[in-house]
């Protein structure tokens, strides 16, 4: 039955994350981007939200965490800063993938480490360092060797890769995609130092090289049967749609007071239709992005064409987020281009978010 109303629990989580993000994340956003790192205490603050730990607590209850709640909280975190939101979204996506697809022994061995009080990095490694990379054309290869697998390839744009204890690596086995849980300290795994990125700089995204990594059969996500890797991609697209919703909302909320204040040719910029209408278009798109992200999350939970809904949410959000950040920068003029305002950072982030696969999950 069609309903857009949050549950009381969802509304409370939204409010709590909104307050937390405004107080703790926004003030730290610029320094984290400039320094291209997230200070350890800030990582622990992110962890203190309890979002990852509660996923585990709720997993075995009668009411596992709703995917829609994940989308709601990701929007709130990203409204303050997308990099910091993704720093938490990455381990969330790892844990969610293990919860969804891991077998009993994988859940038992991997998940307890995420119950602690300190930030724990882990990530999906999906993208590869080739221009025009497409998730459907993964070139990392998984080859069977008796009871084990041998993994060869390179992954890129892995968030906080240097701090990760584990990765979920997607790889091709003939025509089929498989996913493997790879420990960072396994022989043949090499995490390269970050080279720096255009955007989301605090995430220290870097390459992971897999050079004839031998994996036990129990390292395939889901065990011998494996899992449907498309589910990981769908979840990532839905999550990024939520993150883009948040970031776009941050842009709009920052732009409105400035444009009402700034006078040109005798009246505030916001009183000119050309500016006011762009703000309206942004507002309309942000609402629609949010509902698309929620619906994608709902479709994953209810298995109602999740691949389609996740793709549509991701496609719409990518297109709109770029436009919103671009128009905001234009409206700010020179102030949009200088680093005294966050607009230029959001313009860079907007370009990045629509390109990433697997850095988040709902």
């Amino acid at each position, binding site marked *: *039955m*069609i*309903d*857009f*109303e*949050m*549950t009381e629990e*969802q509304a409370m989580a939204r409010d709590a994350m909104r307050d937390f993000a405004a107080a703790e994340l926004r003030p730290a956003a610029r320094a984290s981007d400039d320094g291209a790192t997230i200070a350890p205490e800030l990582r622990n603050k992110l962890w203190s939200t309890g979002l990852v730990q509660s996923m585990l607590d709720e997993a075995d209850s009668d009411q596992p965490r709703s995917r*829609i709640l994940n989308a709601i909280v990701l929007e709130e975190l990203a409204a303050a800063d997308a990099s910091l939101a993704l720093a938490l979204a990455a381990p969330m996506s790892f844990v969610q993938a293990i919860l969804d697809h891991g077998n009993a022994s994988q859940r038992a061995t991997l998940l307890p480490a995420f119950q602690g009080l300190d930030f724990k990095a882990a990530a999906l490694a999906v993208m590869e360092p080739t221009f*025009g*990379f*497409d*998730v*459907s*054309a993964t070139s990392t290869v998984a080859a069977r060797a008796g009871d084990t697998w041998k993994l060869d390839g390179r992954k890129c744009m892995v968030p906080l890769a240097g701090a990760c204890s584990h990765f979920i690596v997607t790889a091709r086995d003939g025509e089929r995609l498989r996913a493997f849980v790879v420990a960072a300290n396994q022989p043949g795994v090499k995490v390269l130092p970050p080279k720096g990125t255009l955007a989301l700089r605090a995430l220290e995204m870097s390459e992971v090289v897999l050079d004839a990594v031998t994996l036990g059969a129990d390292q395939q996500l889901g065990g011998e049967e494996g899992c449907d890797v*498309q589910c990981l*991609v769908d979840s990532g697209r839905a999550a990024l749609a939520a993150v883009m919703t948040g970031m776009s909302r941050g842009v709009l909320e920052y732009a*409105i007071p400035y444009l*009402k204040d700034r006078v040109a040719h005798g009246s505030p910029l*916001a*009183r000119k*239709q050309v500016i*006011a*209408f762009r*703000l*309206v*278009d942004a*507002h*309309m*798109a942000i*609402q*629609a*992005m949010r*509902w*698309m992200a*929620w*619906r994608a999350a*709902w*479709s994953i939970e*209810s298995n*109602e064409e999740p*691949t*389609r809904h*996740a*793709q*549509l*949410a991701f*496609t*719409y959000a990518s*297109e709109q987020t770029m436009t919103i950040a671009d128009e905001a920068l234009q409206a700010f003029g020179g102030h949009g281009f200088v680093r005294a305002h966050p607009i230029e950072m959001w313009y860079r982030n907007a370009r990045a978010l629509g390109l990433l*696969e697997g850095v988040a999950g709902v």
Partner: protein
Amino acid sequence: MIDFSLTAGDRRLIEVTRLENEAMRKHARYYDQHEDEIEPASFPESSELPDKMELMREIEDQTSGLVIAESLMDLEYADPRLRRTEHGLGDMIVGYAGTPEQLERFGHLVLAIALTEPGAGSDPRAITGSARYDEATGEWVLNGEKIYCSKFGQADGAVVLLKGESEGGHRPFLAFIVEKGTPGLVQLGQVKKMGIRNWDTEDFVLQDCRVPAINKVDADFGKTMVVFNGTRPKVAAMGLSIARTLMDFTRDKLKEAGVNVHYAAGRAKRSQLEDRLLRLEALHEATKLSILNCKWREQNEGTNTGATKVDAAIAKAMGGGAARRITQECMEMLGPLGLSEEFLAEKWYRDARIFDIFEGAGEVNRLIVARWLLDYSSKELN
């Protein structure tokens, strides 16, 4: 609880509407080519097909609610319609603004609403049509030219918005029920349009048209505009539906030509046509959710309360814009054969364009949203 699933009743109503559309499609070209003919109150096919509005009321408790269910059917709009809608906008206004005496006298009438004039479209304040009270006879004397009046051909008359005589330099909006056959009401016939030629649209003139005092409805400009909070998302749904019909046609025809949309792959593995189809579908879904959100709020907060004014403007601005972009791009993707009158594609392209104009142009709706979003009065932002 946030939920996007359709109930069994929702699905049934959508199914019934689709069946109806399929059956009616064969009449579409005829009414496109015979714009002076008003569609029958119901087509012969109605003896075999259920009345979807009746069905909706019957199975209300199995739906997502009446307002949402009706919107889901509007999102399946096609022309011509199997059965004419019962109400006009004018009789809806009489319904909530009329006195018991007026309801008694006029309640049975189907009434259009007449607002637009040659010099006053998006800005109704520019209306010049006039109403003068004649104390000698106790009648109102009406003068003016009203154009683009939807449903006037089949209606019993219209609620006409005019301006009264100056009161302290200000001419108030006044509304009157004018029935057809009243001396001084001159019908000018169907408007010749690019598209929606089956859509009953007439012009008329009032020349010293006299109506008794009871015909004056207590509906000023604001009260009249309230009706748009319900109809804007409705009209947006219809326009979006025409665009989707063309999008479905385009997808089917391109599929025959070997173009398939895959949702799993990323954008680097899509052809240009696949990518565009996907982006248009995403725009369609975003717009549809904006319309449904508005209708969901309306269902919770009431249709004529004014609570959904901004949501209605958003739904309409989104719907009108999406109808334009989707139909323009689909025609480009279809290529030269899409131009042929052998297919309905060219008709849907013509039909869809009006949806960003009537029932509030995209710009007018953006003004409504902008004033709310930026906290400006209509003086501060116009």
